[in-house]
């Protein structure tokens, strides 16, 4: 019943992404991180390689690969830098899979296909200046006007805000109905009233674009309402199940990167007449990284398996995300420690790993939010109810 073998397809994708990241991203990452920018042609390459749609069904222009493959892609990308895994998280996890789960057939053909082919980039606009963890507190409003909605508000801390074309935007259609008054819209950057801006000065993920956007009397066709009016909060939460999965999978790669750098350095650096790898306290840090890499991977594979089976996995995904984010932050901290003063400078990549790893402890549900979630499941306070549209399992129906 249990099978941890990767299929030949999965191995090929893993190998391809590994090579892509090593050959085309790794040589530039320090420069991009330093400059808080990166070459937009990376997206063209990702599209060419089929990475931007690999796990969407082929009938919408995707590669038809499964959810475990998505995890492998995230792991390999984040092994080089978190910024590239973030692209998978927002474009595939939060935006594309959200449309796949909740979209009508027509919406999927119209909005998912260009994401799958990489013609367009997608992202997710939930967070606002005054609403993060408490997503139900969003203030952006959408008012129906004939066959359009008029959106007004501001979204902040949005990955790819200044680069993406397609935005899954959450706004209030009923200001008095709390989380039941939120709806989801597919917004295009080209729509009048949309304006985006980059945020500079981030601690990590500096090669990735994070920004804000405003909607000022932005008119969105009613046909771009995803799901039904008032279903937005449920949609956001299911998108986050998919986003969190990609974040968790990425942390495996980040831990792996810390481990690779640390083992290499520990064998080269000598103190007290021997390589520091021979000091037990250094070994302990390395052992913890090994443990955490494997635990996180197992948690991710389990969540991925549930996704393939078409089974709800909010609880398992949250656990993987929570554990992986804390573990990768710890691994990066220890990687810096093992490198001593050299680790504290940008001569080695580990300080970048540490800066990058902090983000995931905050976004897509902070460590505190995951803690509360796990406790509420354990105490029986929280039980997942079926939603109107479930994420399709894999293999996809043709």
């Amino acid at each position, binding site marked *: 019943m249990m099978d941890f073998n990767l*299929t*030949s*397809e999965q191995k*090929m*994708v893993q*190998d*391809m992404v590994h*090579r*892509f990241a090593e*050959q085309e991203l790794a040589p530039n990452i320090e420069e991009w991180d330093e400059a808080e920018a990166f070459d937009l042609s990376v997206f063209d390459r990702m599209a*060419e*390689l*089929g*990475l931007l*749609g*690999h796990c969407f069904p*082929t009938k919408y222009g995707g*590669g*038809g*690969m499964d959810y475990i493959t998505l995890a492998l892609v995230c792991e390999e990308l984040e092994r080089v830098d978190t910024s590239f895994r973030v692209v998978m998280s927002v474009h595939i996890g939060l935006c594309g899979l959200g449309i796949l789960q909740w979209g009508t057939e027509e919406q999927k053909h119209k909005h998912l296909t260009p994401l799958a082919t990489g013609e367009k980039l997608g992202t997710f606009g939930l967070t606002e200046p005054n609403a993060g963890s408490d997503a139900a507190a969003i203030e952006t409003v959408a008012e129906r006007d004939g066959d359009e909605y008029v959106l007004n508000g501001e979204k902040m801390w949005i990955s790819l805000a200044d680069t993406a074309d397609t935005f899954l935007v959450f706004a209030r259609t009923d200001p008095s109905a709390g989380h039941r008054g939120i709806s989801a819209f597919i917004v295009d950057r080209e729509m009048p009233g949309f304006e985006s801006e980059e945020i500079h000065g981030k601690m990590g993920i500096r090669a990735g674009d994070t920004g804000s956007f405003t909607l000022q009397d932005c008119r969105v066709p009613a046909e771009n309402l995803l799901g039904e009016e008032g279903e937005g909060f449920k949609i956001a939460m299911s998108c986050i199940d998919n986003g969190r999965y990609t974040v968790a999978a990425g942390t495996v790669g980040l831990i792996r990167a810390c481990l690779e750098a640390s083992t290499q350095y520990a064998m080269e650096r000598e103190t007290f007449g021997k390589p520091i790898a021979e000091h037990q306290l250094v070994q302990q840090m390395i052992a913890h990284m090994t443990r955490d890499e494997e635990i996180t991977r197992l948690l991710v594979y389990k969540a991925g398996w549930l996704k393939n089976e078409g089974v709800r996995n909010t609880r398992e995904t949250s656990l993987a995300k929570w554990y992986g984010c804390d573990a990768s932050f710890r691994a990066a901290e220890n990687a810096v420690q093992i490198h001593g003063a050299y680790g504290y400078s940008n001569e080695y990549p580990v300080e970048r790993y540490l800066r990058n790893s902090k983000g995931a402890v905050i976004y897509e549900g902070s460590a505190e939010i995951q803690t509360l979630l796990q406790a509420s499941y354990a105490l029986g306070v929280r039980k997942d109810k079926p939603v109107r549209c479930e994420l399709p399992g894999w293999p996809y129906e043709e």
Partner: protein
Amino acid sequence: MRYIVCMKQVPETTEVDIDPETGTLLREGIPSIINPFDEYAIEEALQFREERGGEVTVLSMGPPQAEEALREAVAMGADGAILLSDPAFRGSDTLATARTLAAAVGKMGDYSVILCGKQAIDGDTAQVGPELAELLDIPHVADVREVREITEEGITVERMIEGGYEIVKAPLPALVTVLKDINEPRLANMQGIMRANQTEIPTWGIDHLGMSSSDAGLEGSATEVIDVFTPEVGGEGEMIEGEPRDQAKALAGKLRDAGVI
């Protein structure tokens, strides 16, 4: 026109044990890759096809698991693949391998160019390509670093020689073995990977090739590998301490004493 690429699956590391019975490499448990030089041959064939049309077929003799390597080549863009696998092929030396490949090429119909990597990183003989050309009675150019032109009449290439290169023209069909400088092998993309996993890869055995067992495998081999080992790193290193000036002086003295300068 058809381009045939002969490729081999090799262990990723050079530290492998050998089978005492057959004298060949033991591959169990070691990750396998496409012989790096062969990736360049595949890429070059794909570029021929892109420029001139036709199709690329990859051919490999090896154990059943070599099919993985063929699939990787299909993922890169090859149109088809054929695996030559039979217990009777076990223990082949370069001659028996070349005979088996030649028999397969004979079954494949017309072709214009056969491409091989310069050598396989496990055996390091660089013999199979040239031997195959001889058996097929076609011209070959080894150590090609660039293809200048390929037309109906022939192929013009730059071939590395000591201290430079020569420009060689050969009529078609011909065989070339390629160096790593020749191109930048592409990455497989998602579409290629999907196609690779749907592609039927036929396995041809000794009967299909119409070979006799005395021409194939250990029995058909002209050479016998007696031992394979990773050479020990010999010699003691000596560190010369001191200021750069003194270090240089000491080094020059030692080189002079050793008769090197």
